[in-house]
């Protein structure tokens, strides 16, 4: 039996022993994960820097802080999440207990990604632990230093019998996908997402696929251009554009295109200085394969470069670059997710044209729109679909754990963060708990059991019938409660004033 097969089997045995069930155990593991992030902070920052040349601010905000926050959310809320969630009952079940109980799935596989090697590997891990699963964590081999760090250090903090870090490349991932898991969580490109789903289909394993695509940005003519440019430049060039949520391309009202490009230039200089290669705040491309891919896109038509365009292969550096592109030219930069610091600008006549362009393409992970005209923003929100939509900013919804984070269509399925992670990694079990009261048997005989009669049918239907909503009936309990409260308060005041006088 191979090492990987043994690992999966041993996790299954651990899960079946029930050790991950208790809330105390789950919290202890989350606390241990927090200790890992805090105690090993410098080592982690160092590993991420070696992989991606990421500035400290980015490592903190986009990686470590997200882990700390989600861990704390779990510690704050897990007691509530694990309680039975009681549901409304119909007349037929009025005396019964009806609730939903979240249950662990079992053995979970998490396939991490390289662009946010801590965030995208450990954030799903938090949810899977909170939900009481055993886990195989497969970090991306492309972010090699972080992968090695996780393999060496996580076992020092987390229970080794419940959580295993397995490193490797395509052969190891292919082998892992042959085994039965109870849930699979994948972050990465759409093409591999399909491979993962095909593998999951063999065992009808449920899954979450966090894929990507091209996130469009619309800039309206009614717009504070400095504000839009600043937020856009920040979002695009964080991690040198290697973010699934990064604004991929811009659709800009043609009237303001030149002014906006000027703003972009100013802001890029403000953020990264005259020579971004010397800025401590600008990252590098992950490896030479991606560098070559991006360079090819850049060199396709040099005349389209209007800002930047500098590269340094020894440093895997590509400068913040802006291209002017026409859709009719079929520039290859519009064929796939860029995942780099190159920003194509396409001019459109108005928001209608922008929406048309967006809707002819695959559903994106996020859509961004900048306008001071609320009707324009509402129009985009109403006539497009995407994993998320941000109006007058980019990407920051990923930091709000009360919003579900996930795609739709080719950008993915399922969502996570905060409570959504717990729900993703749990099975929602319906529970109906009755007693053995013999009096209910009389009711059963009268309405439910054969031999059936018209009157039995009539009464049983009445019992389970859903009636049209009645405003009066819906308001009645509230009116009753309000009346009661008023009555109680009046009585108290009356007694108090009587006593005083």
């Amino acid at each position: 039996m191979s090492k990987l097969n043994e690992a999966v089997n041993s996790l299954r045995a651990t899960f079946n022993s029930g050790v991950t069930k208790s809330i105390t155990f789950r919290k202890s593991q989350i606390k241990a994960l927090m200790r890992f992030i805090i105690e090993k902070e410098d080592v982690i920052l160092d590993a991420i820097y070696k992989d991606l040349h990421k500035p400290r601010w980015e490592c903190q905000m986009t990686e470590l802080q997200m882990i700390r926050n989600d861990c704390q959310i779990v510690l704050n809320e897990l007691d509530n999440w694990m309680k039975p969630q009681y549901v409304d009952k119909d007349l037929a079940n009025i005396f019964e207990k009806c609730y939903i109980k979240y249950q662990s799935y079992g053995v979970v596989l998490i396939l991490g990604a390289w662009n946010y090697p801590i965030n995208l590997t450990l954030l799903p891990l938090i949810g899977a632990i909170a939900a009481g699963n055993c886990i195989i964590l497969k970090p991306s081999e492309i972010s090699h230093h972080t992968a090695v760090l996780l393999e060496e250090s996580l076992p020092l903090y987390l229970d080794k019998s419940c959580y295993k870090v397995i490193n490797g490349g395509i052969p190891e991932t292919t082998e892992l996908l042959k085994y039965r898991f109870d849930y699979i969580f994948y972050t990465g490109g759409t093409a591999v997402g399909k491979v993962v789903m095909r593998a999951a289909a063999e065992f009808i394993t449920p899954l979450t696929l966090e894929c990507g695509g091209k996130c469009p940005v619309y800039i309206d003519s009614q717009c504070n251009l400095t504000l839009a440019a600043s937020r856009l430049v920040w979002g695009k060039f964080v991690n040198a554009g290697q973010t699934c949520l990064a604004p991929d391309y811009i659709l800009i009202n043609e009237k303001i295109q030149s002014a906006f490009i000027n703003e972009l230039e100013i802001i890029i200089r403000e953020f990264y200085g005259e020579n971004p290669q010397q800025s401590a705040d600008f990252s590098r491309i992950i490896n030479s394969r991606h560098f070559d891919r991006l360079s090819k896109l850049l060199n396709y038509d040099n005349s389209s470069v209007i800002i930047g365009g500098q590269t340094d292969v020894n440093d895997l550096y590509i400068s913040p670059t802006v291209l002017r592109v026409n859709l009719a030219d079929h520039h290859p930069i519009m064929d796939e997710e860029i995942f780099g610091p190159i920003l194509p600008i396409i001019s459109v006549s108005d928001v209608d044209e922008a929406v048309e362009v967006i809707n002819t393409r695959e559903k994106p992970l996020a859509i961004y729109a900048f306008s001071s005209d609320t009707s324009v923003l509402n129009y985009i929100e109403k006539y497009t679909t995407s994993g998320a939509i941000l109006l007058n900013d980019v990407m920051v919804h990923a930091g709000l754990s009360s919003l579900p984070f996930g795609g739709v269509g080719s950008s993915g399925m399922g969502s996570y963060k905060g409570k959504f992670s717990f729900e993703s990694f749990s099975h929602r079990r319906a529970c109906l708990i009755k007693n053995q009261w013999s009096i209910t048997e009389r009711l059963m005989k009268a309405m439910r059991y054969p031999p059936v009669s018209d009157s039995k049918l009539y009464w049983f239907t009445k019992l389970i019938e859903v009636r049209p909503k009645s405003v009066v009936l819906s308001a009645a309990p509230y009116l009753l409660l309000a009346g009661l409260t008023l009555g109680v308060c009046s009585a108290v005041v009356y007694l108090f004033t009587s006593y005083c006088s």
Partner: protein
Amino acid sequence: MAAISDIVNSTRTAFNKGLSKPLNFRKQQLQGLMRYLTEKEDAIAAAIQRDLKKPRDECMVTEISIVKGECQLALNNLDDWTKPEPVKKDLANLLESAAVYRQPYGVVLVLGAWNYPFVLTLNPLIGAIAAGNCAIIKPSEISANVARHLAETLPMYLDPSCFKVVNGGIPETTELLACQFDYIFYTGNTAVGRIVMRAAAEFLTPVTLECGGKSPTYVDEDCDLSLAAARIAWGKWLNVGQTCIAPDYVLCDAKVRGEFVVELGRKLREFYGDKPQRSCDYGRIINPRHFDRVSRILEADRELVVVGGDTDSSDLFISPTVLVGVDKTSATMQEEIFGPLLPVIDVSGLEEAVEFINSRDKPLALYAFSRKQSVSRYMLSNTSSGAFCFNDCVVQNGMVTLPFGGVGASGMGSYHGWYSYDTFSHRRAVLAKKQLGTTEWLMKALRYPPYTAKKTSWFLWMLAVSPKSRTKTALGYILGMGLCFGVLSSFCYVLGRFCFSLW
């Protein structure tokens, strides 16, 4: 019939035009469905009866009433369900608008099943309509009368450009699965569930798979055996055992098994008389293929039969049958029975029962009967299943506030009531900000490069989630209650004074 790809394409065109999205349209379609259910009730019941030889009352209770209930529920609640759901905000987003908006997926494929041909096709359709999708429904060809009825009648009540019925067998289903859908909802067995999911993977289409398996039922030694026998008999022999959540087999404490089987026999006579073949309340097997399948299983375990065991191939009749002395190697334990055979396996107690259950695939439903609530607690925490019902069976399906779905080999996803709406809608995160130039100084101070250690630490402070404090939470509640009480009391006092002065 037009080519399947053309049907799918035209449905997609309708969706892209936005026809199915407006709230009024969705309500109109649901009202159309309600009219259909009322006006064509007899025709629907007749079609189901022709397919399954089910008593009319069973058609009403287990199919038509349920669809009516789901439709009415959606109409009652659609205004609330479609509202944006605001979410809790952190310090950084305090002034922004953050909410979850529900959106339709697009074109949905619903693959129905034959055992409850009406409800298992229409219930998902209700969810799809409520969520604003267009839909293609493929009823099971095995329940041919219902399939034909739906194809002929639904277009008279629903918008035919948005909702289409496609009939056919394996070739047509295969062709459908080669097309791109935005959601696929499948009810049927696990083997075909795999095929559906594999097809869905080509387009990264999300799926709900309502599969089945063997739903175990535990009967404890401390149990009202007459009650347990009655409820199990009702759940098992409803639709002649052709129910995905029927109690498939019983794990009975050996000490009470004898009495339990006697009670089962008694209840069967009470329900269906001495000759169930003559009872109007007992159905038939769907077709010769399934009749042969179930008969083969019966013959293989013939020596274990203690109640029933009669068959009549000309009538597709198999009597309510109970088998004892069954073990995991018996024929009745090799696959989901989906017929009126009830194997009873002796166990020494709850622990052995749980061990047996856990050695098999996770079931769609798990049942247990006992006077002791501790049995339900033990079952709940030591097993997994789509649903768990204690001291009854099958009825959890009728509770629209409970999600209905499987886990593991019994399926993924769930529906019924709001869960249907949830299943067929995409949860879109919406964060809306204004273009307040005044906030840019904050952005410069905290968010934009060039980064400094100070920027980092300030922003970290702003975004950090603090540990929950019981004291703070309690103080908050006390303050809140005190404030409410104070305001109400003042109001009452002023009102009292006013009334007194008038008088």
